[in-house]
């Protein structure tokens, strides 16, 4: 018998596959295609204290092996999330993470206070959205800024606290260590890479904000390297993210040291891609006689296995 369960910060996921924030809404659209209870978890669309309309202009631009996005955290705000989206998500028999962004420390803290009073399973603190000031990337580049926000949130947060790291951090390992020192229970990485595109006919940037976030299989090798380096450096659970398109990608991240993984852009090319990944992981475990994911977690560097 194989066991795909993982325990992250005291929360048990039935499998290691989580739908990534911003690619899965609040799950409603995907619930039309498959039972969300199949998932290990869902990370909500990035939330801010007050509702946001998102960015103007082009929001999506395809690139080789991925896409640039500049959605700009369009979301209904924390209160609307708590009253209208969270009850639906909690009914799906899967773990729910609230992805929380903000422009100021006060904004983050107020959002967390409101989420403390709900039955949300975990918080995923977004200090890595490149597309808006309120996305928190201002806190995700330099370790000392991250320390400030994570330690303040930690004082308030009564839920398991995952911090979502930006690959644009000055030094990803130092950033990870700093967030753990500041009180993070776990880390998820990576968010999108800062990128851009130019319309050569209009001689102007494609995006109103010029810079957008790059995701998809084109970022996978770099994301994998970052997960590998961070996993070796810290002792908290790591959730690997970055261009995961199939079970092989997922297993690679786990072997690099991830406890669980998130699937983002892959949802766009197939709304049931997460099911294929979950089934693929199970089949791989059976064929390779792997009883639990712990056996292969970080296997490429861990000693005494």
């Amino acid at each position, binding site marked *: 018998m194989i066991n795909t369960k993982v325990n992250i910060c005291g929360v048990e996921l039935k499998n290691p596959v989580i739908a990534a924030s*911003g*690619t*899965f*809404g609040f799950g409603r*659209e*995907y619930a*039309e*295609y*498959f*039972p969300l209870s199949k998932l290990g978890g869902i990370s909500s*669309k990035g939330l801010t204290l007050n509702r946001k*309309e*998102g960015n*103007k202009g*082009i*929001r*999506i*631009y*395809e*690139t*080789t*092996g*991925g*896409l640039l*996005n500049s*959605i700009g955290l*369009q979301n209904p705000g924390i209160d609307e999330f708590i009253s209208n989206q969270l009850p639906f998500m909690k009914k799906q028999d899967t773990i729910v993470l609230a992805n929380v962004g903000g422009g100021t420390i006060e904004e983050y803290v107020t959002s967390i206070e409101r989420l403390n009073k709900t039955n949300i399973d975990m918080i995923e603190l977004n200090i890595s959205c490149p597309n808006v000031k309120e996305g928190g990337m201002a806190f995700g580049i330099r370790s000392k800024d991250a320390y400030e926000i994570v330690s303040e949130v930690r004082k308030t947060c009564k839920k398991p606290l995952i911090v979502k790291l930006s690959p644009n951090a000055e030094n990803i390992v130092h950033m990870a260590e700093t967030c753990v020192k500041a009180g993070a229970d776990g880390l998820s990485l990576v968010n999108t890479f800062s990128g851009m595109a130019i319309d050569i006919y209009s001689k102007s940037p494609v995006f109103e904000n010029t810079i957008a976030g790059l995701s*998809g*299989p084109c970022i996978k090798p770099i994301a994998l390297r970052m997960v590998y380096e961070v996993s070796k450096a810290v002792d908290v659970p790591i959730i690997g993210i970055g261009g995961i*398109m199939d079970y092989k990608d997922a297993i690679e991240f786990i072997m690099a040291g991830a406890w669980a993984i998130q699937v983002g*852009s892959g*949802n*766009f*090319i*197939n*709304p*049931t891609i997460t099911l294929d990944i979950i089934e693929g992981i199970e089949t791989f475990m059976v064929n390779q006689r792997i009883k639990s994911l712990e056996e292969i977690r970080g296997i490429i560097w861990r000693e005494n296995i």
Partner: protein
Amino acid sequence: MKRAYNKGIIHSNTKISHNIFELKLEIDLWNRFGEDLGIPGQFYMLRGWEAKDPFLPRPISIANIEDNIITFLYEVRGKGTHIISKLVKGDTLELLGPLGNGFDLKLKGKVGIVSGGIGIAPLIYLSKKLDNNVDFYCGFRDEVYYTDIIEKRVDRLFISTEDGSQGHKGFVTELFDPHRYDLIFTCGPLPMIKNVIKICRDIVPVYCSMESRMACGIGACLGCTIKTTKGMERVCKDGPVFSSREVIFSD
């Protein structure tokens, strides 16, 4: 539960004009239960390649449905549509849908349909499904296509070309009088849609099918949203058909 991506078999894939192709897809492999394959204005996400490159599927609207064959008209614009244009009879491609809201077929009164370029695609199917009296105004840059089929379905057909090679020389919006109609359906380039709405303002309601870059196609990613009186709405899920009274244009 809705179906995720399924395979369709190409029945034909024909160039009907410069850069314009007609694709007929047979989908009876999975449509054994005669489910609804879509109404005018709805679309499918199409992918004629192994997923990853190009990364995203392409949203293409339904131009006709007959038995188990769906017809799509598409313009070759980039890599994705170029690959699809090279596929031949017997090849397969993957499709997700039908998606979006579609046109309201229950509205009463005399209808004016206004198309521009490849925006004609959903309106071809609309002209087949409407019971109303319909006049069809179609504008093209140069070459005219599909007008023979439309002509048989409508009361009057008006054609314009920008180069004057057929019909009225100029824009299609110069041809029609909004006072003659109880409602207008339109699809085409954004400047044309804006112009139709301007001409019809305070005279006749307009329903327009909007276009936007899409990623997921099912309403989750918020990549294709447009500004409306109800807030930011998703073209793929809340649209693509909107009442002109809802849409807020940026300029």
